[in-house]
């Protein structure tokens, strides 16, 4: 009988050139004819953890600090930590295999809850502008930063990882896994005019590893003001 494999909800119509098997995930490392960008990469297989605790500050996942303000992100070593609210953060293992889920009850493995897509390269942010009113290019925020809101009508977590010249740059995006096909269709449709093509994990790693370790943004002045003035959450 066939080997047991996992399957991503994203199936690009492109020729996979190189595939690696990782924890039963067939991971496409490279597609033929990926072009010069912009690129869209399926990262659904990347491990994602949800951490919720009233006292989030007492946690140091993998020894890393959790950013303190909602909307702030920290991309350190191979891990991106996004602060979601007062009691919750998301931990995405972007560049290396994840270790076992920590035993504390606050952690949940949510790898399979969402589809994770990277959209980057020339005009990547112009593609996003066709799909969301979220300000992914907010000049008052330092990359990486997180926005939780609608993207192509669906509630998403969107992280601007890089903002380059004009509309160049890149972002990560998650939405409910069941929407994967609709979301990918919408992104490819919006990106067609810019030559958007699917790319393999290698392309993502090459881009993202250049960004890891940069100082994370802690400045989100408008948000900070609100957090300190509101009692209800």
């Amino acid at each position, binding site marked *: 009988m066939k080997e047991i494999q*996992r399957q991503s909800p994203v199936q690009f119509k492109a020729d996979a050139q190189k595939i690696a098997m990782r924890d039963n995930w067939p991971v496409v490392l490279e597609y033929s004819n990926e072009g010069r960008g912009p690129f869209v990469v399926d990262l659904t297989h990347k491990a994602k953890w949800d951490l*919720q605790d009233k006292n989030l500050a007492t946690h140091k996942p993998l020894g890393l600090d959790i950013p303190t303000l909602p909307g702030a992100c920290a991309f350190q070593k191979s891990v991106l930590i996004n602060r979601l609210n007062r009691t919750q953060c998301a931990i995405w293992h972007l560049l290396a295999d994840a270790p076992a889920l920590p035993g504390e*009850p*606050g952690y949940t493995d949510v790898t*399979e809850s969402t589809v994770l897509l990277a959209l980057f390269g020339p005009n990547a942010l112009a593609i996003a*502008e066709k799909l*969301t009113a979220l300000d992914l290019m907010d000049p008052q925020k330092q990359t990486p930063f997180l926005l939780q809101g609608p993207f192509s009508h669906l509630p998403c977590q969107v992280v601007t990882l890089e903002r380059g010249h004009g509309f160049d740059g890149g972002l990560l995006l998650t939405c409910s896994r*069941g929407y994967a096909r*609709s979301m990918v269709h919408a992104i490819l449709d919006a990106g067609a005019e810019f030559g958007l093509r699917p790319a393999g994990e290698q392309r993502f790693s090459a881009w993202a590893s250049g960004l890891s370790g940069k100082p994370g943004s802690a400045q989100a002045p408008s948000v900070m003001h609100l957090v300190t003035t509101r009692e209800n959450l």
Partner: protein
Amino acid sequence: MNRLTKLPTLRIDPSENRSLQYKGQTYQGVAGDTVATALYANGVRVFARSLKYHRPRGLYSLDGECSNTCMQVDDIPNVRTENTLLKNGMQVKDQNVKGSAEFDWMGFMDKLDCLMPAGFYYRTMHKPASLWPIAMKQVRNAAGLGKIAPDFRMKGDYTEIYPRAAVCVIGGGAAGMTAALAAAESGLRVVLLDARPWLGGCFDYRVSAYDQEKALYQRARELAKAVEATPNIRVFKHTAVVGVYNNNLITAFQVGGESDSFNERYLEIRATSVVVATGCIERPLLFENNERPGIMQVGCAHRLARTYGLLPGNQAVFSIGHDLGLEAAADLFDLGLQIACVADIRADGQDPQLLLALTKRNIPFLRGWVACEAHGSRQVEKVTLSTIDGSAKRQFGCDLLVASAGLTPITGPLTLAQAKLKYDMHTGYFLPVDLPAKTHIAGRLTGLQHALAIEASGRLAGLNAAADCGFDTAKSAAEAGQQLNALPGPERGTRLVSAPVKGRKSFICFDEDTTLKNIKQAIEMGFDVPELIKRFTSAGTGPGQGGIPGHNLPLLVSEYQARTGAKPIPTTVRPPLVPTFIATYAGANHDMCKRTPLHDLQKKAGGVFRRMGVWRRARYFSEDFSCREEILNVRNNVGLLDASTLGKFRIHGPDALKALQRVYVSNMAKVAEGRVKYSAMCNDDGCVIDDGVVVKLAENDYYFTTSTGRAGETVEWIRFHTRYDGWDFHLVNLTDAMGVINISGPNACKVLAKVADTDLANEAFPFSSYREFTIRKKIPVRAMRLGFVGELSYELHADASYMPALWQIIEEAGQEFGIRNFGVEAQNVLRLEKCHIILGQESEQRTNLLDLGLGFLWHRNKPDAKTVGAVALRQTEKDPGRFRLVGFKMEDPQRPPRDGSIIVDQRIRGYVCTARKSFTLNESVGLALVDAELAALGTRLEIFEDECNGKRLDARIVPMPFYDPQGERMKM
């Protein structure tokens, strides 16, 4: 027609041809032409016929403020050809005509105006009553301008973008461009929008001097160059603003050029600050036959020549009320137009330079005169001019009458932004008295006419807008303010609306054929506010969006009511400011729906899919929608159902149990590890909103499921009902993370035993228990023994990514036991036989837990939990006047009633929730909600089905469940 091909102001490229088809002929235009200018170049003067009177209509303005040049282009109706760029091969047709625009058989309607005073249709055609249906048909056919086919499909690409801006400038004339440049000095993101395909506004076509070195058009091009060279200014040309909403949300649409990837695209811009620099349009002059082809506004005539290289006529008369009219007369004269006379409404106040220019050219000039009647049937041939008081008259032959009463600012964006407008006696404009927060105005809109003042006002507005975004521009703004104050201020405007006429054929609204006389009639009938007059006479409700009557109507009403001292009150402007294609508003319009991890496998297996909530699910697995084979296979062998859409959640944290006690009606403290607890959630009326199972994973750590429809709202629901409590618990939505396979039927255990790495014996894994194990040593699953369909049944929850593999493993293992898929409908029948309810099917808004017979789930002794719904349940417990859920059998076993049929005696006593022919029982059975007094066992029910022709179906209430009443099969 010969083009003026050498003018430096042209926006056409005479060297590049474009052609269109009209009336079976090919007409040649050039690149940059609009459809209407191309037709005009070919001698077309009558473009359309009017709505009611079928009067001939021609080119009047060039910005689409009326329906005069609306035509059918490429099967699309009501296209404003005067500002639609010509593309090669366009198919153009005239509309609302019998015959053609030139020769319309319906032209006689123009003589019938006495039969059609204001609101005539409310007073006619209803007597006798039998007349109305016939008359209505005629009314329908007569109404409407363009024609569209019901199977029409729009071609091309329509898309959308959501640009962000610190400052959004509306209007790309000199003021707007200056404002954009000033705002951009701070490095802010600036967006500049202009409705025309180029920047430049009213400077663009004018050759008058800007300063000693340059003409106005040169200055406009200079500014445009500076704007386009500024990287933080984003320019959207050919982009009309359609909506302005509070907190500075601007919507607009952009028309794609020949090299754009889109035909049109919708823009939604959230800006911090807004500058409105939309300039002015002309205020139409009212006189008899004021809309005859050959009559046009000043800007139209001027731009036809300067922008499109078309001399608008041969012999002209001007009847104008502002200096732009004088300027145009002199310039058009120089370009070759003969001018019989220029009549100016104003008694004084003209720019002496311009008067001198007319004198130099020997153009006769009449001060305080106005056009009072145009003559000629299809085109103007002669004009009667009179003094303002009508005391003297003169006639002039002409083929062009340039007519304009004055200017009126384009305040649409401001009124949409909630600015209050007030009539300003000096300019004669409706001007904002209170600007909304972070909104600024600049340019001609404010009454300024002097070029330098226009620019200075733009700069000031731009700097103030930057200040809204947090930049300190106080110093430069003060300087700009001083500069502006030193320049000439707003100019005096004209107030005259109509020439001294009775107004039977003086049209205040071209689109709706509303005359001066109609307005007077409406006022006499008690409609004394402009807004009511608008409703009663339709003035301003046509495709021109009130562009023609917008200013004149309130002036006229106040003039007519002068004795009451009424001030002119502007009518309401509504979005979209410019008519906009539904295709454009719709944009990309992607269908966003959820698919389960097993979608493709089920599709391959012949699944017939239906949209259910946010999901697409396989409802059937054959074309036999009774699902006989699917059902019997579950009862006799084993079936496989994709139940991945179930809501799935983890709740953890010190107060997790408290939260569950709040929302679930049962005592959740009793959930034991390794067991599955079925319970329900109610709303505060006691109505059941959800049911599902809860599993305890550890202390204050639970896994629970919800129905498919509730999954999206569950987190929100639990947080809402605990929002005042400050409890410490956390929710994780795992709905999409886990797929669910339901394997049901007498052979279920045998199939699963082949692949599961655990002991499935009844003692090891009994009914209603929960286990975790692996499949084939690799796939971890959470398994529950449940019995929704009434058979031995396992529900396997596993990582979504493993679902296809898991499905195939089980399918393969089950082959020898006759395994096959079943869909949602088969499940529906199976559970019906078992009388297991589906919320929303066996319940509705009025159905509470007790009505459904689920009272056993309710734990009444936890008042401290303040369980949602408990109070209402207690209060309704003894109410006899409620519905009850009952099971029934049909007297005719072959004939189930259709779902939704009602149960009646003299009145309606309930309805059938679900009923089916049961292949298992060879009976027709169903569940119904009926008045409690009918709910006793054995009661006969009369069922009233649709199209029953008076024949009722008979049923009898029987014990539930119908199938396997002892529940042995689930537990075997």
